[in-house]
């Protein structure tokens, strides 16, 4: 590697080494051939990978959602014919029929949307404030704050699959900790926390909140560390109490972190999959959009177009927080 330094001396010399101090970046055209090859490799390989395995499929989802395809045979551009057995109507252009069917005759669709919304609401209204409260209390440096932080963060280290398994011992009908403590383990009065379709979403949301609030806590702790301590001092001098100081002084300063937390909250509630899958494969009260997407493509009956349409629904919802985040983050750089 050391040989490179003097090989390129000539290139750098004709480059005009003392560049103006105001110039922050050096244009590609001013680079030597060798450097240009390095740029192409350093940028090109990851870009190809990202395009091939993330963006190409993302666009593919949008396109496939307008087709009817069982994954066998080829795709073509002919419009699907009505009143023809589906075996003859394969790989064809289906228009918005997939979306229409999802919204009208697919029984799991609206429950899944509702469950995703409840998931989001619980994350916004319970997990996030709880995580923020943990962070604020710990940030004030009360005794044992490091221990509290370690304990509250512990669930974030565990995979969601593991969280699901661990909580089954809490929730189990006949031997679980909760039912034993409240004395409802006999077959007649036992509460089926994870089996009862009116109850299991909330039980799983307790698990999800248990993990999510630790995550939010650490994000806010990072944000609070960045708050200038003199701001707080000044507010206290002016006679503000802790509550006012937080909401009027600290919270507005943490705006960037609030946006990160908002993005994490929305995306995590759309991605939610592992917990319900490990609990009961996402049926019987635990339907989520992510589960429906998955079951339509890797299940027995493959409905690629239909599954894609459900994926597009997820995509459109997720684009809202993603755009807000990107706008907030990159606005300044675009300007400079």
């Amino acid at each position, binding site marked *: 590697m050391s040989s490179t330094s003097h090989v390129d001396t000539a290139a750098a010399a004709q480059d005009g080494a003392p560049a103006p101090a105001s110039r922050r970046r050096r244009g590609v055209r001013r680079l030597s051939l060798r450097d240009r090859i390095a740029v192409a490799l350093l940028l090109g390989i990851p870009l190809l990978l990202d395009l091939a395995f993330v963006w190409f499929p993302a666009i593919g989802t949008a396109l496939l959602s307008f087709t009817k395809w069982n994954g066998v045979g080829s795709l073509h551009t002919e419009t699907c014919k009505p009143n023809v057995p589906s075996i003859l109507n394969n790989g064809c252009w289906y228009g918005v029929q997939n979306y229409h069917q999802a919204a009208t005759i697919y029984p799991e669709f609206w429950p899944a949307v509702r469950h995703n919304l409840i998931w989001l609401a619980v994350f916004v209204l319970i997990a996030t404030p709880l995580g923020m409260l943990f962070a604020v209390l710990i940030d004030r440096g009360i005794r044992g704050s490091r221990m509290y932080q370690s304990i509250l963060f512990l669930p974030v280290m565990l995979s969601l699959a593991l969280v699901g398994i661990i909580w089954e011992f809490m929730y189990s009908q006949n031997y679980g900790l909760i039912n034993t403590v409240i004395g409802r383990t006999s077959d007649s009065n036992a509460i089926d926390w994870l089996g009862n379709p009116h109850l299991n979403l909330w039980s799983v949301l307790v698990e999800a909140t248990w993990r999510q609030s630790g995550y939010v806590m650490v994000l806010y702790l990072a944000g609070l560390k960045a708050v200038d301590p003199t701001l707080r001092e000044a507010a206290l001098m002016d006679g503000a109490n802790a509550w006012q100081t937080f909401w009027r002084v600290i919270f507005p300063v943490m705006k960037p972190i609030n946006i990160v937390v908002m993005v994490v909250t929305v995306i995590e509630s759309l991605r939610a999959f592992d917990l319900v899958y490990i609990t009961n494969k996402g049926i019987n009260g635990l339907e989520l959009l992510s589960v429906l997407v*998955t079951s339509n493509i890797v299940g027995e009956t493959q409905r690629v177009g239909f599954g894609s349409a459900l994926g597009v629904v997820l995509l459109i919802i997720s684009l809202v927080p993603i755009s807000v985040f990107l706008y907030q983050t990159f606005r300044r750089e675009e300007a400079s």
Partner: protein
Amino acid sequence: MTTEALTAPGKAATPSAPGRKRTRPWGQVASQAFLITASVLWLLPIAFALYVAVRPYSDTRKYGYVSLPHHLTLKNFSDAWTQSDMLHFFWNSVLITVPAVIIVLALASGVAFVLTRVDVKFNVALLILFTAGNLLPQQVIITPLYRLYLKITLPHFVSDSGLMYNSIFGLIAINVAFQLGFCVFVLSNYMKSVPEEMYEAALVDGASLWTRFWRLTIPLCRPALAALATLLTTWIYNDFFWAITLMSSGDKRPVTSALANLQGQFVSNQNLIAAAAMIAAVPTLVVYILLQKQFIAGLSLGASKG
């Protein structure tokens, strides 16, 4: 003030400990009470699963799971380990996680360097492209990705299925592609803080672009790389979705997704499931205990530059 002191006598003795911020004692007591309660609730599920794991099956069947221990044993751990072939699944996890983490960090630091230090016209647009890719829910891309994985053939020495689908190589590829965005975002923010003068000095010395990247930038980014490495190790090790959807056979899956199968295998013996779950948690807990600082630093790096 007196009533609060009475309800929590232990804390009333030290109302004005030196070095504390100016919080009133009752606030201290309430905060402590709240955090202690939360900590107990947060530890309880893990502690209970651990308790189930260290009790023999005969014991829990006789007295129930919520009972005083009559015998404690580590036999469940050894049984779970041997009966479920956990070593094999752990090895799968290693084969996926280690290469994936190294490749992501190598590729992401290259991209971040080019995007922060070379004007390639579309720097911000490319940065947005990478960052946004990581924010998409996995389910948005899974349908075409699954078809793609069934179409791409690989030589048999890379994948015995002959396809991207159901191969360790395929899982590494998607984990790398998916995590790239986050690492590019974090590393480019970090690299922006390197003073421009250092690069000007390197240019005067005639350092090539590669030298400026490999010899100058990478050593300076070591703290960020360490933080990201711990974070990525945990995330990729904990991945469940890619392994469930892009691998058909249970025996190639990493340990996190293999747990779902183990659950079915040991359905009659909950103690063994608890033990297996605890064993699967060990690697992340080791990361947590040894590298907690780096781990949290990694999260903060992603968050603080909003």
